[in-house]
């Protein structure tokens, strides 16, 4: 009896442990919801505004995370290359500026101007979009196709610290795959990033 109780206890704690942190958000293949978020120019941005888009590069990013900052120039390049091909980039700041003052709406405006962002840089002010997508960190990319099906989740490329040492440009390669009707491979990758400040 004692043994049964013990194994029951082990089993229950195992279940409890594995369910404490359930995996939330979108996986590759899920249909992503649209949003309406305020851009730095004061306008509201939704994906449905882009009638001719073949897809979207959604990047959860911010001003303050060193890992996000390292990718700013590469975001500019990605948008420059792929917006004309029907894959515009939308950057979304998910951080709470009360915790990270450097990620305030005003700070976003300043940063976008400094870096010459040609893409919308929108603010997830109510912090409802990033949990729905399942973004956990900045930067965190979701590549969608024209039906807003998630086709790729993860890092921008395999060399955050040094753009000159990129061996696998994950997002660019994923878009090239979509353009020719193939599935991105890999369809998800991981990288170190800053946890989103809720």
């Amino acid at each position: 009896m004692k043994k049964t109780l013990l194994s029951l206890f082990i089993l229950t704690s195992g279940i409890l442990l594995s369910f404490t942190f359930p995996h939330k958000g979108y996986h590759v293949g899920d249909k992503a919801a649209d949003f309406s978020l305020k851009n730095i120019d004061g306008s509201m941005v939704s994906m449905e505004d882009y009638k001719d888009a073949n897809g979207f590069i959604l990047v959860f990013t911010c001003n303050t995370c060193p890992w996000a900052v390292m990718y700013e120039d590469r975001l500019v390049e990605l948008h420059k290359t792929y917006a004309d091909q029907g894959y515009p980039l939308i950057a979304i700041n998910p951080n709470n500026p009360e915790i990270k003052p450097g990620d305030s709406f005003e700070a976003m405006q300043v940063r976008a101007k400094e870096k010459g962002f040609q893409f919308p840089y929108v603010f997830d002010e109510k912090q409802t979009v990033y949990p729905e997508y399942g973004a956990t960190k900045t930067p965190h990319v979701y590549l969608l196709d024209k039906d807003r099906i998630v086709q790729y989740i993860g890092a921008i490329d395999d060399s955050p610290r040094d753009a000159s040492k990129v061996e696998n440009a994950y997002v660019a390669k994923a878009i090239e795959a979509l353009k020719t009707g193939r599935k991105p491979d890999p369809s998800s990758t991981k990288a170190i990033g800053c946890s989103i400040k809720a």
Partner: protein
Amino acid sequence: MKYLYLFSIVFLFGACKSTQIWNASQVPVYSKFDSYSPKLVLENDSIHVINFWATWCKPCVAELPYFEESLSSLQKEKIKFTYVSLDFEKNLRSKVIPFLNTSKIKADVVLLSDGKYNDWIDKVDPSWSGSIPATLITLGEKNIFFEGSFHSEQEIIDLIHKIKI
């Protein structure tokens, strides 16, 4: 007066001994995760608490004092704490070492500079998305992984106790 000098010397020596002075040679640098990974699990039924952090990560720096408190509370147990810094190697002397000294860190510290994150994050734990802070606790073949911040010493101790069940 002579005694005062003697006293001062003894006092200074004592003060130095009680706090470790960090220098770069005390922080091993691993450029490949696979070179570090054999050290994640300790022998002799010892628990290994591994915290992934960086000096630029505010929530990481905020929770380290709780790890230090846990380390002091559990020092009689078979347990080791290692803080794995994900800082750039070039910042070891300029940022990491000064931080370890001002924070009077007592745990072991290593610097992992392997930038091919996608190749090793899953090896720590498949559930890890890559955000820091993140903590791995190992004991033999058992391990517990937690992605997120701790807000007290007790939260850390509670998680450590779970691995013993």
